[in-house]
């Protein structure tokens, strides 16, 4: 650690390339804090959006016409509007209409900016996931579902144990794309002052006056994050592979 710090300090003294995050403890802590927030946002929104996607796809295949129309409207509305405006609509529009709670003599809003970011981003990615899962379910042959019914599965149980496991396997490449996209979309939380990586890095470069260096760090950070996510998804894909199903 000490060697890395010295090396970057030396680099600054010699060339003027100021990678302050790597030798300045204060900047480093801020950067790591931002990274943690990005990871937290990514993991929670990925999990929530998967749940929304699976639930939405179940309803879309259901018998209730009203519920189907409602899910279709949700998907169409969230797919065709900018996520940033959605975020503002939720945080400013709905956030100010929500009742505030008393806490220690102060009125604090029911949901803070981080929670609103999670809700908004999950709904955005969830809408895409509904579509991806539905297409996966459509790839499962009717005969398989009939076989499950013949074994006494209810519709819900057949969905959970038979249809979804098969559907997930075929839609993994599309899901992979969408989750990478979601990871990149978490930067939008910057706009409502969630202290994630972009926010932290911008604070660092405004104080340390090293825009170019921090920009490189920022691009590298997201490159690595996306790389790790893609690697994990590919591993998952390989682990779930059933011979004879898919390629």
């Amino acid at each position: 650690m000490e060697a890395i710090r010295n090396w970057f300090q030396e680099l600054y003294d010699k060339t003027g390339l100021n990678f302050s995050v790597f030798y300045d403890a204060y900047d480093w802590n801020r950067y790591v804090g931002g990274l943690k927030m990005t990871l937290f946002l990514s993991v929670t929104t990925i999990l929530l959006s998967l749940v929304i996607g699976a639930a939405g796809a179940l309803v879309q295949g259901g018998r209730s016409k009203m519920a189907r129309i409602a899910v279709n409207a949700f998907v169409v509305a969230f797919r065709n509007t900018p996520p940033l405006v959605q975020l503002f609509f939720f945080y400013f529009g709905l956030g100010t209409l929500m009742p505030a709670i008393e806490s220690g003599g102060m009125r604090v809003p029911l949901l803070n900016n981080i929670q609103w970011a999670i809700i908004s981003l999950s709904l955005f990615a969830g809408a895409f996931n509904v579509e991806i899962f539905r297409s996966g379910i459509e790839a499962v042959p009717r005969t398989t579902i009939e076989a499950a019914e013949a074994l006494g599965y209810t519709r819900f149980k057949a969905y959970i144990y038979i249809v979804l496991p098969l559907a997930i396997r075929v839609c993994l490449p599309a899901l992979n794309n969408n989750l990478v996209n979601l990871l990149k979309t978490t930067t939008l939380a910057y706009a409502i002052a969630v202290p994630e990586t972009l926010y932290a890095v911008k604070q660092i470069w405004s104080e340390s006056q090293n825009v170019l260096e921090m920009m490189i760090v920022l691009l590298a950070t997201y490159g690595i994050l996306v790389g790790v996510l893609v690697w994990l998804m590919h591993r998952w894909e390989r682990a779930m592979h059933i011979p004879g199903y898919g390629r």
Partner: protein
Amino acid sequence: MSTIRRTPNGLAILHPYRVTPTRMAFQIGPLSAALLCFGSVMVASSAWSQTAPTALSPLEVIAKWAPLLLKGFAFNIAISLLAMLLGTIAGLWLGLALLSEIRIVGGISWFVTQVFRNAPWLVLLFFVMFLVPFQLTLFKTTIPLPDWQKATVGFALPVMANVAEVVRGAVRSIPSTQWEAAESLSFTRRQTMWLIILPQCVKRMLPPWMNIYSLVTMSTVLASIVGVSEMLTLTAQVHAAEGGRPELFAPLYGFALLCFFLYCYPINLWTAHLERRFQVN
């Protein structure tokens, strides 16, 4: 849903996977739609007229500022079109470089594509906004670079990388027999690419290209974060001009959502239509 297809022989084999976009399957008649609009306007306006007699109701605020907001929206569209134009031209060349037989060209263009494809749009926007100077001096003439032009370039970068991938994918999807046939007719590699392969690619590139366009349009609002006065910036300013009443946020941002929806949804439907028509099995 009842759209699950049966395999001809009824075997339990997975069907080919393709993401099909959701469409609203129900239709409202013009009469009921008019009644619905009228009803909601009546309810909304009556509720607001009771609470605040002097302040404008949200609908009146939107009606009052709609020309300005729509002008802002037109600016968004202009930015998206320009970014798409720049990105497509650059992306075509980058895509061809990806397919280059010279290894170093292929390697460099692969790296460029990966960087611009995997970086968040907002980060790339910051990248251009902060690192490109606000004016350029070439041969003693100073060219000013206003914010919106820099933002357009910022949006063109990810478009370029995505278009490059689309071009590469389309060229790869052309059967190699086409290359062989062209070779036997003594076409050079360049002639084969431009006269035989790329014309065949146009059709299959169109749907993904339109998807990218829809993405760019929705990303143009990011420019408000870096201070370009497009629709979202104007919306915030209108909100402040109307006294910053918190209950105005939802209708104003709702109006912005509606504008983008009315622009992007038809594009999405058309893309889906083209995808079905051009589907290659």
